[in-house]
Each structure stands twice: as C-alpha cells, then as structure tokens.
C-alpha cells in the first residue's frame, strides 16, 4: 500500500482488506463477539487518526496489528471495569452456522489456552503470520514465539487426545442453541 495516500483512502482500503482478519483475531483472543465488533470499529478509527504518523518502518499490516493489540488491551480493560462484564460470551453460538460444531469445538479449545498461548496460536496457525512477524506484533523475541507455540501445541494435542472434552464436559453432551 502506498504510504502517500491520504488517511481516509488508507482507512477505506485497510478496512476492506483486513476487517475480517481483525474481527477473527479479536474474537479468538478475547472470546467475546460484542467486544470484537467494537474492536474492529475502534481499530479503523485509530487508523484514520494515526495514518499520518505511519512511517513505514514495518509493513502496514504489522503496523495495523499493533493498533489491534493496543485496542484490545484498552477495550478489555475498560470492559473489565463494568460490573456485568464477562470474559467469554455465548452469543457466538446464538445463530446457526454451516460449520456448526467444528467451529465451536475449536473456539472452545482456544478459550482453554492461556492468553499468551492463544495469541501465538491465532497469529501463527490461524492467521498464518511468520515467526518474525508474530514476534514483532507481540513484542517478543522469535525464540519466545517458537517456544510458546511449541508449548501451546502440546497443550492443544493433549486436549484433542482427550476426545475434545471441554471443561470436563464431552462435546456430545452439550447443547448449542440455534444449531440443528
């Protein structure tokens, strides 16, 4: 993307290109669909306001993801101050989706990981960022990314070996409203 385009055009282009990626990242790292939608909006408002400060030291997507992470931290903090805030909502399940249970099963697995494991799994295995890019976004060393991913993968494999039981409850015993 040309760094010389104006902020409005850049915002429109980045929104068009990355809105779904931002949404997925926010949704899988926070586990909260409502918060994730708010994050998407806030991210691109910040892009508009900060585009003139983007110097091109990193790739535009990496720059965007730093904004995404900062938004998630700010908004999660704000939400945690509200009395009824809950970390993971169930609205994700409230409407039918074609990919149904497989989707929810994988989301459930992610939710059981620690925040650091979740971050690295989402960036490396779902969003397909390189180790170097992931390290830049998270502000970690590349070796920390590799080590953390390795441990996260071990935990995931262990969960899968246990038959996809989530929080001790077999998937087959759980009901999902709105899903046939």
């Amino acid at each position: 993307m040309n760094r010389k385009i104006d902020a409005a055009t850049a915002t429109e282009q980045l929104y068009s290109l990355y809105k779904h990626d931002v949404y997925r990242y926010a949704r899988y790292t926070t586990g909260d669909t409502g918060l994730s939608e708010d994050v998407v909006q806030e991210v691109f408002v910040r892009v508009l306001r900060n585009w003139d400060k983007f110097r091109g030291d990193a790739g535009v997507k990496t720059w965007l993801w730093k904004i995404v992470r900062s938004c998630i931290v700010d908004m999660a903090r704000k939400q945690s101050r509200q009395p009824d805030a809950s970390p993971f909502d169930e609205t994700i399940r409230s409407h039918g989706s074609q990919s149904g249970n497989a989707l929810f099963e994988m989301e459930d697995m992610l939710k059981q990981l620690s925040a650091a494991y979740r971050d690295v799994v989402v960036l490396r295995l779902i969003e397909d960022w390189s180790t170097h890019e992931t390290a830049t976004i998270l502000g970690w060393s590349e070796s920390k990314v590799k080590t953390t991913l390795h441990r996260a993968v071990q935990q995931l494999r262990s969960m899968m070996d246990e038959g996809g039981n989530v929080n001790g409850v077999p998937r087959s015993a759980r009901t999902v409203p709105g899903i046939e």
Partner: protein
Amino acid sequence: MEYQDLRERFQVLSNVQLPPAKDVAIERVLQLEIEKYRARPLRMHRRSTVWRRVGTVTAAVAVVAIAVGMVTSHSAPAPSNTVAPVTAQGNIQYTAKNKADVAQQAQAVNVTPYLPYEGPSADQLQDVKATTDGEPRIVLTYKQFTVQEQAVSADHSGGTGISETVYLKDGTKAFYNHFNNQRNIPVSLLFVQLGNTYITIQGTGGDAGPALNKEQMLQIANSLKPLK
C-alpha cells in the same frame, strides 16, 4: 509446513467473518469519521477539493433521503408525512389484527418492527412470534419466505454459500447469500439493517417451491416499511 495438521483443524476458524449487519454499521461510522476528518481545518491548497468532495457526498445523501423518504439508524427520523401510505401498495396486505400481533410480539423482545409489502407473488402473513432462542427476535412467516428482526446485530458468519453485497433502491447496503442447507435444500438470505433493526429475509425452497432469487429478495427488502 509446521504443524500442518493443526492448521487444518483450525481452518474452520479462518472462514469466520465480521457479521454483515455489523460491517454495514461500522462502515457508516467510518464514513462519518472520514467526513469529520476531511472537514477539519486544512491547508488552503487542499480546502477547495475537500469541501467539494464533502459537498458532493452531503448532496447525494440528501437527494437519496428526500427521494426515498426514509432514513436509517444514524440519521434523524424522517417527518411522518414523507413516508408513503404503505397499506395501499404492494401484494402483501395486513389486517389490523396482523399489525396488532406484530406490534405485541415486537414489544416483547424490544424490536422496532418492519413489514414487507411486496413479494414475488401475492402473499400474506401466516404467523408472527417472538423468540428468545438465540438473540431475542421476532419471526414473521409468509408462504414464500420468513423475516427475522432483532435489535442486536446477528452473527451470520460461517456460511458456506456465495455472499454478495447488494444495495436497496435507497442505497442502503445489504448482503445476499445463497447456499444449500444441511438437508440440501436451497436457501437464500438477505441481511439488511434498517434503523435499529437487523433484518434477515430468508427464502427457503422445499415445499414452498424453489428458493427465492436475488431480485425477489431485493423486491421484498425494498418494500420494508416500519409498522404504523
């Protein structure tokens, strides 16, 4: 590739998308922010271009609003005399009882109800009910289609069909999606936000006949009017 098996397991998560209705709402917010950004104090050499651009957008919005006589969530309510008398048009008619039922059900789930007045052929309201299974919403059932209305953006992610951005006659953005459901019955969906109401029109095949096509779904969506 490293951890290929896990990447494949997680593939299902890569298909999730921002819900269309929320996408529309965010785009509106961003457009407002962009207009504010463009209208801020600027250097003299850019001012004329920027104001010409803002002026064009404002004029276009005004023309659409006047021509259509209806507004959406981020605009001020239209004066009541700009809304066409709805009962006199279209091939879907409502009795006073139909309207009272819809109003009652909508009130129960805090939804501002809209009614379609045009369908592919003459039709009538078969049933209306409020449900709290999932997001609280009302479900209006007609012979050839159903209309779901709710106050909270629906999560329409995960669909495997072809999704397409479409526009109503007044320029309102909507999303059209069609696919075969788990029983291999063709389904077409159209998502649109009007005011504070998130509306999903579903044209289902099966006993009622083939799924409605895009033009038919748009015809229904274009005829949606707030319940009076």
